[in-house]
C-alpha cells in the first residue's frame, strides 16, 4: 500500500500551540511520526544569564502561562537551596495553595481541550466554566489570574488574610460541585470512553524507558510524582501520587481528573494547617556553586539546574520541562493508530510547547 507523508500542524484546531507532527500513513493508519518543534523558541535560558538572579523569577513565570506559578516556585526553591535560605512555614503553605490552584486550572483547561478534540463541545464549555472559579480565586488572592508574581526568593509576596480565607473556601465548595458534575461524564460517558479507551497505548516499561513524566507516566502504572521528593510542605500533607494502569489515553485522563479532586483537598489542607507568621525572609547572599531541583508541574516533573559564581548573575540556568520528556512517547503512541485518533492521542500527553521551547 502506498505511503503518504503529510504535516499535522503546526496550526491545527486541536493544537493549542504550534507543533508539527509529520505523519506517514498507509490508508487511514499511521505508520510513522516525526515531531517537529521550533516555532516559538524565546531564548529564556540565555536571557536568564543576563538578568539579575532575583529578576529571573519574572522570566521563569513567563515560560508558560498555564503553570507560571510552579515555574516561579521551582526557580525560587532552587535559589533558596543553593543559598541555604529557610522559608517561613506560612509561605510554604501559601506556595502549596497557589501551586495546587495552578494544577487545577491547568488540568481543567486540558480536560476542556480534550473534550473539544473529540467534539464534545458542551463538556468543553462546562470544564472551562468551572475553571473560571479557580482563576477568580487566584485573582482574588494574588491580584493576577495567569501570572501571579507572588513567589519571591525567601518566601512569598502576598498573603491570604483572614477576610479572604472564607471566600477561598466558598469558592472551593463551588468548584467541588462543578467537578462532581463533570467527573462522571469523563469517567463513564460512552462517547468519552469510545474515543479514549485503548487509544495511544504506552506500555509500562516504555513509559519508563522513554523518560515520560507526570500523568503520562502515572497513567502507565508508575507512582512517581516529584511532590513526594519533598518541597514546600507536601511532606506534611500526606500526599500520595495518583496512578492508573490502563496505559491508554483514558488512563492519562483519569489521572488528571483524580488529581483535580486531590489538589482541591490539598488546597483545603494547606489552608487548615497554615500557621501564622512571616511571609518571607530577607536574602542577602548570592548563589554559588551548582544546584539541581525537581518539582511537579501539572504536566510532570520539571528539572532545573543552576550554576552560580557568587555574583548577582547566574552562569547557567537549565530548564528541562515536562513536555520535552513526553514528546518521545508519541513515537510509540501514534504508530498503528487511526488517523482520526491522532488529535486525542496527541492531546493525551497535554503538550505544552511554550514550556518545551522556552
Amino acid at each position, binding site marked *: 500500500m502506498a505511503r503518504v507523508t503529510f504535516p499535522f500542524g503546526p496550526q491545527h484546531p486541536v493544537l493549542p500551540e504550534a507543533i508539527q507532527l509529520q505523519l506517514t500513513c498507509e490508508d487511514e493508519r499511521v505508520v510513522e511520526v*516525526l515531531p517537529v*518543534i*521550533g516555532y516559538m*523558541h524565546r*531564548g529564556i*535560558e*540565555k536571557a536568564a544569564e543576563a538578568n539579575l538572579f532575583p529578576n529571573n523569577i519574572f522570566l521563569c513565570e513567563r515560560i508558560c502561562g498555564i503553570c507560571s506559578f510552579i515555574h516561579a516556585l521551582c526557580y525560587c*526553591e*532552587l535559589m*533558596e*537551596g*543553593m543559598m541555604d535560605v529557610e522559608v517561613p512555614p506560612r509561605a510554604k503553605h501559601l506556595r502549596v495553595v497557589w501551586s495546587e490552584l495552578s494544577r487545577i486550572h491547568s488540568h481543567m483547561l486540558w480536560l476542556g481541550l480534550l473534550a473539544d478534540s473529540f467534539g464534545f463541545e458542551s463538556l468543553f464549555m462546562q470544564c472551562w466554566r468551572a475553571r473560571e472559579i479557580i482563576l477568580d480565586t487566584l485573582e482574588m488572592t494574588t491580584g493576577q489570574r495567569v501570572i501571579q508574581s507572588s513567589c519571591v526568593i525567601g518566601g512569598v509576596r502576598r498573603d491570604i488574610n483572614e477576610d479572604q480565607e472564607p471566600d477561598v473556601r466558598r469558592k472551593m465548595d463551588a468548584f467541588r460541585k462543578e467537578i462532581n458534575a463533570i467527573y462522571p461524564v469523563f469517567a463513564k460517558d460512552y462517547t468519552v470512553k469510545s474515543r479514549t479507551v485503548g487509544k495511544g497505548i504506552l506500555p509500562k516499561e516504555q513509559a*519508563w*524507558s*522513554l*523518560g515520560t513524566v507526570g500523568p503520562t507516566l502515572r497513567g502507565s502504572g508508575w507512582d*512517581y510524582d516529584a511532590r*513526594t*521528593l*519533598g*518541597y514546600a510542605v507536601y*511532606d506534611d500533607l500526606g500526599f500520595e501520587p495518583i496512578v492508573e494502569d490502563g496505559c491508554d489515553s483514558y488512563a492519562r485522563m483519569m489521572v488528571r481528573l483524580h488529581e483535580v479532586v486531590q489538589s482541591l483537598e490539598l488546597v483545603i489542607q494547606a489552608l487548615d494547617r497554615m500557621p501564622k507568621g512571616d511571609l518571607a525572609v530577607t536574602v542577602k547572599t548570592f548563589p554559588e*556553586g*551548582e*544546584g*539541581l*531541583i*525537581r518539582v511537579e508541574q501539572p504536566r510532570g516533573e520539571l*528539572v532545573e*539546574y543552576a*550554576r552560580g*559564581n557568587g555574583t548577582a548573575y547566574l*552562569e*547557567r540556568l*537549565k530548564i*528541562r520541562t515536562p513536555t*520535552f*520528556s513526553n*514528546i*518521545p512517547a508519541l*513515537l510509540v503512541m501514534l504508530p498503528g493508530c487511526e488517523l482520526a485518533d491522532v488529535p486525542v492521542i496527541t492531546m493525551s500527553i497535554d503538550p505544552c510547547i511554550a514550556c518545551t*521551547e522556552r
Partner: protein
Amino acid sequence: MQQVRVDRGADAFISPGALLKEVELLASEGVRFTTMVCLDVDQEFEIIYLFQRLTLDMVRIRVRISKDEELPSISSILLDAVLMENEIKEFFGVRITNLAIDFQCRMLLSAKSPQTPLLKVRPQSQSLGGGE
C-alpha cells in the same frame, strides 16, 4: 527534603570514549535519562548527564571535551536523549555524532537565528576558573 546543592565530588567523571559503555551499563540497571546540561568552560565543554534510578535517585555523569572534539550520542541506547542532544548541538555547537534523529541544528532555531547562542562571549583574558 530534596538535596538541592550539587556535590561535584559525588559525580562520576568519565572520558568521552567510556561514555557509551557507562550508559549501557546504567540502562541495563533500569536507569532512565532525565536531561543533559552543557557548560561552556573556557576551551572545553563540560556536559552533565542526569539519569534517574528506579528508586527515583539521580545519577550524574560528567564528560569534559575540548571544543573541537566529537561526543558520541547516547540516543542509540536511550532514545529520549535525542531531543536534548540536538538542543546542545544547536545551542553550543557540541559535535555530537550518530544522533538517532538529527535535526541538523534546526530543531529550535531557524536559519536567521543567532548561531550557537548559549556559547559564552567573554574577553580574551577573562576566565571562569575551569569550573572547579
